[in-house]
């Protein structure tokens, strides 16, 4: 059995490695085509990553990516494409900011309240897509894309002055949240502060693994993703499962904006980070929906995003990193599929071989059992 395990590990690593190498090669081609050094940007970025303040930035960014990617991955595990993580986390962050600015409880209650608000808002927004899918058969892809656009408008409306908006200069904010709702960070001295919420993100990863791999519910969810027909025959209520998965995915998505909201900016404004949801899709793909894989992918993505900032000062365009991220996503999809097919075929072959070998061994020990015998004299 050990052999299969080792091989499975090898296969699991082969997919992302092939994708990353392909992405680097293609990005280098782009660099050469634009008449620049294909090597130097990489070394510059690696150098950046050695600075401790950049490291803190990377970790903070990765925490948010991680939550967004987990939300996407929950959907992926049962073949649901929740593209709406983007709208879900933005709306959730805004609602949390509003509640945080208007409600003041002791920290021990305030923070759980804020987390709950974020999760409920996210779940509410994704739940709309879930209900549309289960009752009217609307594709969750279409519904969540639409809901992203609607979320943008809803946020714009709610942050108007006459609603919850508090203008600060040119910026529309939701007012500063009460201090009791600020999530304590980990002070790294001159290098800055790591968001305390990064630890919550890590816990979410552990919980994700535990629920999916160790509970009955997780088994039903994975079974539905692996084969909807087999899951239905095994007794999974497909509609309820779709709705539940959408709700959980949305609830986790709701958390994605909290690291920066509770740990740094303490208000929802026009400059609040956008696009985390879409980044999360790429990261979930690269991380193969596994909690550890997603963590590594989040760190890589955050590294590309943060270490590339310095490229502008050296005469390179920091968009190189964006090109690379894009190419990685495409390469990942192709290489995973190829590796998966190859692995399945290979295992089939190996099993056949082992059985044949075992059969031969048994045949030999039985003496002349293997010799060709003729039925009926010819």
């Amino acid at each position, binding site marked *: *059995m050990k052999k*299969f*395990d080792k091989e499975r590990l090898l296969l699991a690593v082969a997919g992302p490695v092939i994708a990353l190498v392909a992405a680097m090669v293609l990005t280098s081609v782009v660099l050469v085509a634009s008449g620049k050094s294909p090597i130097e940007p990489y070394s510059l970025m690696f150098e950046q990553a050695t600075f401790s303040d950049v490291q803190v930035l990377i970790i903070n960014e990765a925490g948010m990516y991680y939550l967004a990617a987990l939300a996407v991955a929950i959907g992926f595990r049962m073949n649901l494409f929740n593209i709406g993580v983007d709208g879900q986390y933005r709306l959730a962050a805004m609602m949390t900011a509003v509640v945080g600015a208007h409600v003041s409880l002791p920290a021990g209650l305030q923070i759980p309240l804020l987390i709950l608000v974020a999760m409920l808002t996210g779940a509410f927004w994704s739940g709309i897509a879930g209900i549309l899918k289960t009752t009217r058969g609307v594709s969750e892809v279409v519904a969540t894309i639409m809901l992203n656009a609607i979320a943008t408008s809803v946020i714009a409306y709610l942050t108007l002055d006459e609603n919850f908006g508090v203008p600060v200069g040119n910026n529309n904010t939701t007012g500063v949240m009460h201090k009791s709702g600020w999530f304590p960070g980990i002070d790294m001295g001159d290098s800055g502060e790591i968001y305390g919420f990064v630890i919550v993100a890590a816990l979410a990863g552990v919980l994700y693994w535990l629920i999916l*791999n*160790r*509970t*009955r*519910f*997780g*088994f*039903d969810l*994975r*079974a539905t993703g*692996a*084969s909807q*027909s*087999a*899951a*239905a*025959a*095994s*007794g*999974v*209520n497909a509609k309820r499962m779709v709705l539940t998965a959408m709700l959980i995915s949305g609830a986790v998505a709701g958390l994605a904006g909290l690291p920066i909201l509770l740990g740094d900016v303490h208000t929802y404004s026009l400059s609040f980070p956008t696009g985390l949801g879409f980044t999360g899709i790429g990261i979930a793909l690269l991380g193969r929906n596994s909690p550890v894989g997603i963590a590594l992918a989040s760190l890589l993505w955050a590294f590309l995003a943060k270490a590339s900032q310095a490229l502008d000062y050296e005469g390179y365009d920091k968009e190189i990193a964006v090109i690379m991220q894009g190419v990685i996503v495409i390469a990942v999809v192709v290489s995973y599929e190829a590796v998966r097919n190859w692995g*399945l075929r290979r*295992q*089939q*072959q*190996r*099993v*056949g*071989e*082992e*059985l*044949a*070998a*075992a*059969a*031969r061994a048994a*045949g030999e020990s039985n003496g002349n*059992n*293997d010799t*060709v*015998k*003729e*039925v*009926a*004299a*010819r």
Partner: protein
Amino acid sequence: MANHDIHLSVRKGTVHALVGENGAGKSTLMKILYGMQKPDEGTIAVDGTQVSFSSPADAIARGIGMVHQHFMLADQLTVLENIVLGSEKLYGIGAGARRKIAELSDRYGLGVRPDAYVEDLGVADRQRVEILKVLYRGATTLILDEPTAVLVPQEVDALFDNLRELKSEGLSVIFISHKLGEVLSVADDITVIRRGTTVGTAVPSQTTARQLAELMVGSELPTPETAESTVTDRPMIEVEGLKLLADGDSGRALLDDISFTIHEGEVLGLAGVEGNGQTELIDALIGLKHADSGVIRMAGEDITDRSTRRRREGGVGYIPEDRHRHGLLLESPLWENRILGHVTEHPNTRGKGGFWLDIKGAQADTRRIVEEYDVRTPGIDVTAASLSGGNQQKLIVGREMSHKPRFLIAAHPTRGVDVGAQAQIWDQIREARREGLAVLLISADLDELIGLSDTLRVIYRGRLVADADPGSITPEKLGSAMTGAASGHLEQTQESAGAPAAKAAAQQAAQETADAAAEAPEDEAR
């Protein structure tokens, strides 16, 4: 290594049967012959010249064509269009092609109508189109992969007539089958494959099905034990007036007025050509589709509105007709597949209300199933997809039987399963029946149906149109009811009118048992 030391020579103008257990390497051999896979060693010679195929196109160029078990036809196109598709260069797409098709159809007695739409054709007609497709491409050697699996006895006879026609015109046919009776009736030569190697050859006129089966399995077969009827008068499943309408506006009845009762210890066999409502009936019983009207009762309790999960927890076992779609997670390890369908039950879960999976328990029990049910696998961590079909089926049967079902839905329980495993699965069903299991048996293998059932019903266009006593019915008679030609209570018309029918039938059954013990699950001296 899937195959080694294979020796096979097919004489021109003969039907050569290839038999062997599932997973014995028949498919691999055929893939090699048809150029889909390359051999590591050894040679293939066609008409004395050594050849090497790297794709099916090479094989076709050498006159080797394959008729797959699952037809590869486009429903929306006509027969002519289907035949021409991909080979437009041979005879064009117009009059030339039509002339060629008519000529081939006449010469081999295939009776193909070039302008009919494939979707309007029955299974047997589609098969003839597939054969013609291969002939059109110039094949002189045809490989037929389990061609009779989908046919009723009358259609099988017609197919065999076609094969004899092909043979008399000097073509060679390689015929793969599990059904030894058929092999003996149509083949000129027989080659047996076991564990990836050819273990013997036989001449049909000097061989019995039993000898062949023993050669296939490599050991003596267990004789079907005789047991008295275990049917009780306690109903386990009662279905009354079940009706199921098609989705959408058409509102066509897929199932209409289905009523039957299965008692504890009874096997009810359901005969029917595929697509006459069997799938819908299974779905209604397992709870995947909810009946538009009618009642389903299990041990007296109304379960019509229960969910699939609650029905399964209540003791409904399910051996699905399509194990890949409904019975397995192909890319998951065996032990996860052992959990599938029984995730709320011991030994798969622990804790209050079965919230946590008991992975150790499930794995240990998977090992037990692998051991007890002889699932051939190097371990329980390999994916279900890497097992052969027969071993996948053994795993499913083991899983379902491990939960002591009270009512078992067994759809084609031995389809694609080798002779040895077949006997084993029958034994398991019989044993559970003795302990009071009620079984709904759906099978295309009429010998299996007749041999295993206590009661027989025939389903035709969503209705139960006929019933029969398995002790006195023949496959032919059953086959005619399956095509709608007969209905009501089927009785075998006996020449000896005076003798009590039952007695004559018992004698006949006893004789059949002796003749075809290897393939027919005859288990009761009635």
